[in-house]
């Protein structure tokens, strides 16, 4: 960690220039970190910030990659199954259509949301937030909300769990019929790697600071509540 005497521009009454650890509430003085440095909480040891050089560009690229892969994953055949001449090759889209009028529609919708909808939505929200920041322009309207939603939805996007589920399903169905993996399955596998890479570049604190520094439009509450400008 850095020398704290160099700093000193914080205010214990308004909270300006301070940061609280989200896991243990310990107060820290905010400081600009160099790319590659890591800031850890003094109390619980959790990572507070870990900026990477050129992270915004990488994150945008990875988000686009994820969207393209997801498109393939939805429309290409996922698994092919055959037994005694009866064959069935199906894409996720086809599966969804097959169930579109059944009693299981809610379950199918929930599953599709978790494995397709949310990953795509999160990629979109991330690009929306980061694209102007990467070019040094002011963020779009509601960029803060977009990024917060993207982070809140993280545990609910379950593409990687779906892939493991596919492996289990393959074994279970092996006794009933022959199964071949389609291109969509490999797209899902690639998606996991893309997500892992994206996670390595992601540093929420840096992005929040960037959103703020780039001139986030607020609704004026901060004036009323007396936050120092």
């Amino acid at each position, binding site marked *: 960690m850095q020398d704290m005497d160099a700093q000193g521009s914080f205010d214990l009454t308004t*909270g300006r220039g301070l940061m*609280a650890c989200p896991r*243990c*509430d310990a*107060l820290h003085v905010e400081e600009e970190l160099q790319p590659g440095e890591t800031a850890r909480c003094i*109390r619980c040891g959790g990572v*507070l910030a870990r900026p990477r050089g050129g992270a915004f560009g990488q994150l945008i690229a990875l988000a686009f990659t994820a969207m393209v892969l997801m498109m393939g994953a939805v429309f290409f055949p996922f698994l092919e199954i055959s037994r005694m001449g009866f064959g069935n090759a199906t894409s996720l889209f086809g599966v969804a259509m097959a169930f579109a009028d059944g009693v299981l529609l809610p379950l199918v919708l929930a599953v599709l949301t978790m494995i397709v909808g949310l990953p795509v939505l999160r990629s979109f929200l991330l690009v929306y937030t980061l694209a102007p920041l990467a070019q040094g322009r002011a963020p779009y309207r509601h960029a803060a909300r977009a990024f917060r939603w993207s*982070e809140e939805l993280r545990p609910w996007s379950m593409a990687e769990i779906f892939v493991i*589920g596919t492996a289990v399903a393959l074994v279970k169905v092996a006794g009933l019929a022959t199964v071949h993996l389609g291109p969509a399955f490999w797209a899902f596998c690639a998606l996991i790697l893309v997500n892992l890479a994206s996670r390595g570049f992601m540093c929420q604190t840096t992005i929040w600071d960037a959103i703020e520094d780039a001139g986030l439009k607020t609704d004026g509450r901060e004036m009323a*509540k007396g936050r120092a400008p």
Partner: protein
Amino acid sequence: MTDAAPTAPVMTAHRAGLVGCRSCGRVWPEDQETCNRCGADLVPPDRRGLQKVWAWWLAGLIMYVPANLFPMMRTQTFAGLQGSTEATILEGVVELIHYGNYDIAAIVFVASIIVPIAKFLSIAWLARVAGQPATVEQAHTRLKIYEVVEFIGRWSMIDVFVVAILSALVQLGFVASIHPGPAAVSFALSVAFTMLSAQSFDPRLIWRGLPLRSRTDTDDKGQD
């Protein structure tokens, strides 16, 4: 980032009369209700928040009962001529073992039996002891458990996905078909509710009531 307070006692936002945003880390005066940077609601670390944890926990537990009693899926071969078999979660695992798929059986067993039960116990324990005095080492253990619970909870969805994939794929009509049972829905709900329960738990409560010192008293940074 450096410590804002003299070393030995860790200054927390709560103690300083401030409230920290759990979403972005920004610190605001205690009477502020919404974070002006990210728009999240500001919640002080307070035992009242545990009500939400218990409510979701109970909902998850209630849904977990039918999830284990009802069949997870129904397999029909030759339009039912060869009989149809129904399997609950546990029977599904036993079936896998029966066919010699020990590794897959282990995955399903861990994901849909061990993990949910361990999760119920851990969340209940965390919520029970939250805010009670503990040593620093105990607090670190609790935080570790909380992080594991948060990370591992979503993996219980595996079984739901397996049923969804199987029933979608094995529509061979006459030869074989698989239909999801009522347990699939209630198990999915149970997992979702326990995820919500874990998310409602405020890890800052773990550290409340702790003696005022940091983990390493040796490190002596400057005063503010």
